[in-house]
């Protein structure tokens, strides 16, 4: 604080509160709407105080009781979780290995490989969507978990962030490990991993949210309702003639919970890692 200006401080808080309302109001209304009876008409506009059906609605969506959803959420939450965790860990694993290779080895094709990985930055999945679906079809991976996750785990961003962290380690670390007779993999596992754990934590948050929020790709790759994700389920709930808003919002609440818990639970590392990853 450079000087004390009461007026300016008051204004700052006012702007921030307005921003907070803007950000939080849609989420608040989601919770409120999820607490009203799904079988009778919603009061208009939706009241600002909760009704009494929140847990009944959550239960209905979770179990799929009464045909509220085509597939019970407790199953497809598992699908979403498996997809998000596989994508996040897959990205981190192959990025860590390639960053380690780039920083600690010299081999033919190193620079070519580096450029190739870097070039994937320019090809987000949405852009090459149909050609990629064609490749997945050719490989017989349509409607499979591998087809769902593998094409999404290449990650230039994670590779670069990990490369940065590895480059910041002192060279003596590797030399000492060498003198002590540790091989490269032992060095990676026993020394590097513990040192860069905050970077890894940040990457997990970023990539988990990325994986959890995939929308277009699962829509194109999955045919089986039993494999579908919660976002797909909400899409189909929205597509029905008369949208049952309380149930949609209950589903949205359940869908939001895992990424929100990950982001808030790991907030400090996430914020640092996100900003570092691009700087």
């Amino acid at each position: 604080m450079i000087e004390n200006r009461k007026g300016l401080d008051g204004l700052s808080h006012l702007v921030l509160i307005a921003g907070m309302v803007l950000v939080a109001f849609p989420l608040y209304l989601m919770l409120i709407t999820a607490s009203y009876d799904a079988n009778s008409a919603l009061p208009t506009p939706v009241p600002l105080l909760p009704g009494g059906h929140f847990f009944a609605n959550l239960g209905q969506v979770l179990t799929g009781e009464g045909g509220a959803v085509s597939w019970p959420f407790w199953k497809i939450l598992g699908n979403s979780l498996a997809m998000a965790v596989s994508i996040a860990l897959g990205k981190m694993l192959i990025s860590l290995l390639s960053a380690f290779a780039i920083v600690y080895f010299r081999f033919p094709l190193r620079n070519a490989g580096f450029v190739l990985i870097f070039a994937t930055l320019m090809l987000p999945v949405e852009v090459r969507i149909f050609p990629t679906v064609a490749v997945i079809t050719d490989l017989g991976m349509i409607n499979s978990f591998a087809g769902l996750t593998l094409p999404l785990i290449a990650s230039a961003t994670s590779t670069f962030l990990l490369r940065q962290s590895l480059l910041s380690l002192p060279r003596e670390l590797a030399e000492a490990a060498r003198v002590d007779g540790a091989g490269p993999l032992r060095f990676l596992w026993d020394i590097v991993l513990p040192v860069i754990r905050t970077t890894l934590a940040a990457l997990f948050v970023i990539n988990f949210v990325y994986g959890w929020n995939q929308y277009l790709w699962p829509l194109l790759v999955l045919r089986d309702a039993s494999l579908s994700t919660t976002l797909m389920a909400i899409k189909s709930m929205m597509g029905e003639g008369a949208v049952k808003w309380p149930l949609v919002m209950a589903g949205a609440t359940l869908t939001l919970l895992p990424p929100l818990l990950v982001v808030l639970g790991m907030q400090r590392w996430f914020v640092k890692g996100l900003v570092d990853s691009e700087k």
Partner: protein
Amino acid sequence: MMSHRFHFPERGLGLLLMLPQLLITVIFFVWPAGQALWESTRLQDAFGLSSTFVGLDNFASLFRDPLYLQTVRTTLLFSVLVASLGLLVALLLAVMANRVVRASAFYRTILILPYAVAPSIAAVLWLFLFSPGLGWISYLLAQCGIDWNHVLNGGQALTLVVLASTWKQISYNFLFFLAALQAIPTSLLEAAAIDGASPLRRFRDIVFPLLSPTSFFLLVVNLVYAFFDTFAVIDAATGGGPGKSTETLIFKVYSEGFKGLDLGSSAAQSVILMLLVGALTLVQFRYVERKVQY
């Protein structure tokens, strides 16, 4: 380039470690991109059985197609609105959050919530706020005599997807602006304050110029976001309609690709999008150079 670094002598192992990432990149990035490039230069017959080389004809006919050009215009308008609105709101909030001491952690926690929200969920939430007869915003607008129906009104539909897309991106922009503001040395601002510069003056002459690399970086990121990542928002909120008023380039590729009518044209559209992301990524690296690295 990194000769001062330590290198393990096992060269084969190095290649082996890079292999998984390389394989995935080649199979799922290079191959499909190459296929799109190949198909974009070919014309299929009516039955999809054979195709002939037509050079850049598919591209030329796209740029002669008024519907395609209309989509280009919609995409530009949409992206500029999303990027500028998102940057302005986030900058304002970050400057204020950087000033206050009390409750700052609380503000920050609330403001990063949308980061976790899936774009399609963001669309559902805003759709609800604006849904005629139910939502709060449409209700308040009706009180002011404005009749809101984004299912019929193209401008209103565009407003809806712009707001939902911007809302989703506020957290990201806010965190970057806040980090950049916190990196500005306090001594600079103190010196200016002692010289009698008002807070507004200090912002204009010191803070804003120092923020320009971050702002530029965020501008590019937001444009890329608006071009490509907002597919889910548009699909869930308006489905590109009414008419084609919220149809962006990426949405057009998707909806036409699904019908599978014209493979060559779809591929040409994909190639144009790849060139667009490529160009934006290069611009970003060229201008911001070492300050910003992926």
